[in-house]
């Protein structure tokens, strides 16, 4: 089963994401509280998909993606950015950092699952 990592500094959002994902059949979800934590966890196990928030203390999401992309095992894994900003600038930044795609916050569970299904079905 696909193993997912979600990185967000909000406990509530992590909970919501985990719940929405588990409802969609993804129950193997690991949570990380910020970029530093996310990177540590990503190194200690191999995840099939990483969903990360952008604004976080200690290490932000874009830096995290950059760091992940430097690791061979994550050079081609899908990474989705969870963001409240859907400006072109934000998208450009996400893209530049190496993200696969983005999901807006507040997320709609069905749409989240659709996006996850798409990246994982390939």
């Amino acid at each position, binding site marked *: 089963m696909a193993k997912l990592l979600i990185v967000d500094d*909000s406990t509530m959002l992590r909970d919501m994401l985990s719940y929405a994902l588990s409802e969609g059949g993804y129950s193997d979800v690991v949570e990380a509280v910020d970029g530093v934590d996310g990177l540590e966890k990503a190194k200690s196990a191999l995840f099939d998909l990483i969903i990360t928030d952008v604004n976080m203390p200690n290490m932000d999401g874009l830096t995290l993606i950059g760091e992940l992309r430097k690791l061979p095992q994550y050079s081609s894994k899908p990474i989705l950015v969870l963001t409240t900003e859907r400006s072109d600038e934000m998208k450009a930044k996400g893209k530049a950092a*190496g993200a696969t795609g*983005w999901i807006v916050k507040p997320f709609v569970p069905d749409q989240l699952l*659709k996006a996850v299904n*798409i990246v994982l079905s390939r």
Partner: protein
Amino acid sequence: MAGFDISMYREMFLEEAVELFESADNVLLEAENNGSLTDEQMGQLFRDVHTLKGSGASVELVYFAKFTHEVENMMDKLRNHVIEFIPEMASTLIDCMDVMKEILHLEAAGEMDQDKLDSMTHNLLAEIKGYLSGTHPSSAPSETVSVESTSTTQISDSFADKSEEDSIGFFDDSIDPTKFNKAYGFFKEEYQNPQAFGFYSDELQARSESAPTVATKNYEENDNFGFFDEMPAISPDNKELSYEKPEPNIEKPKSVTPAPIKKQAPVASKADAGPKDEDDKKSASLASATNNIRVNLDKIDTLMNNVGDLVITNAMLTQFATSISETKTRVAVLERLELLERHIREMQDSIMSIRMVPMESIYSKFPKVIRDISKKLNKKVEFKHYGDAVEIDKAMIEGLTDPLMHIIRNSLDHGIETPEDRLKVGKNETGTISISAEQANGQMIITIKDDGKGIDGNKVAAKALEKGLIDENQFAQMNENDKAMLVFGAGVSTADAITDISGRGVGMDVVKTNIHKLGGIIRLETELGFGTVITIVLPLTLAILDGLDIAVGDKKFILPLSAIVESLQPTKEMIKKIGDGTQDLLMLREEFIPVVKLYQLFNDVEPKYHNLEDGMLIVVKAGNQKVALFIDEFLHQHQVVVKPLDKNFRSVEGIGAATVRGDGSIGLILDILGIIDAQKKIDRHDLEFKKKKVS
């Protein structure tokens, strides 16, 4: 998705919001005091507000998110230096936080509408607009355009409609657009066609130039991570890649090493507490961000209870083992039981350390309150705190926060003078309130100090006299400080006029009761004109205590070891009778200590001895009051697991809590302060009774 229960997450969000507000408030208060904001602080503020908005919107608190979005927008411009921080902004932003809190609670309660939002936020939005447009002389003038985007009408569509709206494009032609909703997208097209966004490849270029060789190689691989078409299936090869590849040149963040749980040494002197705490605070908060789990306190309580039961079972076994008649077996079993006991104790300590949280979590609530009150009263106050990293039992925090808050309110309201008054008496116009925490001798000591006008003992005592809490004789004998201590009596207030700050029907007597409930004591020292120091001494935990079994007749009680000063068998010369001969005093090294006969206090107990010289006296201390308890004998010392009485039964005067003994029976734990109070009541009652008889 059906059945997605938003209300549950709302609860979670409300909890989380409290912390975020606290964090933002504290940064802003500092900014208000210093008139500046560091980049780091701005980043923090932005993140706090950003999370508030994002999470609020996620749980469909639309009004809250709307306004918060405006604040976030301003924070975003600040942190990116599109506009520059000016001191006035701090106060605006603090007001914004207050309004955000209000909106949040109204909306969560379902009492919010657009009109309310408009009226609540109108002025603040105008202020924000002013800052952004540079209407304010010192803010950046180039931002006129952004005003438009922040007006109330515009914000609504910036995020509130999470339905399919604009702003999302699909870059991958191979993906059937009908499969998508507009709430997410992929960056496919640009990857295939980097020229369309010139910087993408530049960026990569730049990064690969600066990146070490190993990384560069990865970037090359990156060139073909792209997405759906070329994304490799997760091959076994991929899985075998080592996860811990060395990563040259990637600076390992310092925060990944969790700070070990420290046994906090007592803060040696307050002067050097400041910087040290600063460091502790940093490492603690970083560690907490990376390596913590949130656990419901109830679960830890349960664990503590389980260990408590282990302690009890161990005691049972030990008791049983001592009755083994065969010596060799008995010794062997007892030896192993001792080992078991040691392990249980270690386990207890570990659980205790889980329950501990830094004092910082209490302190962080104060700056905002102090600011608001001092503003209201036109007073200038500086708040200092020491021992931020000193740890306290989480279970105590709840009970401790209110009393501390009350003491601080009181200091502000009645203690600290107005700037004019302070200048008149030759003081600095800014008053100081400081709070410090330290651990010493297995106790927690919290000191709250102010340099205000102090408490007028005579005034307090006069009031206490009027209320009948003391008599004229006592009034005459008390020293100034003892008189001031009477503010802890019910209905005694020094306030000439009741204000809405501290005169909320709650007096210092409630503070004392609450501290007392935590098993603590409170002391006060004051000097008229120079300020007041309030000291609170608390046990480190409410869960376990070292006790001494004492016997009165066929009843056994447990006395907290920490209360005991000494024990003795009195000689006739040491006992002095006063009054009509019913009240005994123990004279010990020139000090008179009232004797409390436990069998009189708990009147269904028939003691072995009635004569003081036959039994034992145990001198115990609570606060600055000492009494000598008269008992038949004392038995042995042991550790007991404290079970609160009022939760399981009802509160009984003189009994603090209960425990389960090794033999399975219930043991009652004496409450020294309660006994002293009860004894005083009995004395007063006797006195009044006698007075009545005479008249």
